[in-house]
């Protein structure tokens, strides 16, 4: 997707291991979001950021932390991965409140 890149695209990790997912944008948008998508639950907001070093929790933030030290990068960390965190993770960006979001291609994470 133009302007937003997620890495890695796929990852398999073991229970109890810390994992960091990266979202990189070239649009200079202020707002960045992390969602997870699961069958039967749809897309749920984990954390979001409204500026460098400004972050807040979403609906399903337990077990996750985020950091944003630069406008272009938003990192999602699973502090100690569990099988319930097996999911597809999407990053999204937006220039401001009331604007549509642009989503990345997703990271498919499997915790074994």
């Amino acid at each position, binding site marked *: 997707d133009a302007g937003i890149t997620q890495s890695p695209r796929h990852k398999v990790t073991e229970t109890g291991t810390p994992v960091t997912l990266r979202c990189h944008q070239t649009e200079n948008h202020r707002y960045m979001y992390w969602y997870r998508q699961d069958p039967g639950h*749809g897309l749920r*907001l984990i954390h*979001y950021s409204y500026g460098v070093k400004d972050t807040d929790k979403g609906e399903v933030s337990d077990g996750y932390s985020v950091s944003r030290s630069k406008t272009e990068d938003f990192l999602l960390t699973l502090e100690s991965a569990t099988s319930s965190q097996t999911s597809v993770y*999407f990053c999204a960006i937006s220039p401001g*409140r*009331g604007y*549509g979001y642009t*989503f990345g*291609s997703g990271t498919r994470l499997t915790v074994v």
Partner: protein
Amino acid sequence: QKEVEQDPGPLSVPEGAIVSLNCTYSNSAFQYFMWYRQYSRKGPELLMYTYSSGNKEDGRFTAQVDKSSKYISLFIRDSQPSDSATYLCAILITSGGGADGLTFGKGTHLIIQP
């Protein structure tokens, strides 16, 4: 009750038919209404966006919002096999400081039969 309800389908219609996709919501504070399309193993892409009651048209797509009934719809005219995807409604509250995240419906899986 989840804030945004959407029938998961699947909804299967023949090519050329008019498709109607719907969502209901419970929070009157919702202000912005969007529809996203998601192809398998891809990220959602924004299709339609509106903040007022009434209709908004873009090509074969029409978004309709009825705030009094808390009901939003997406109509697709002259449906094509390439329209086969999952359609997600998304609603946004903007209040206070910071950025409130979009609340999504679970998505309706649409199949257009050639």
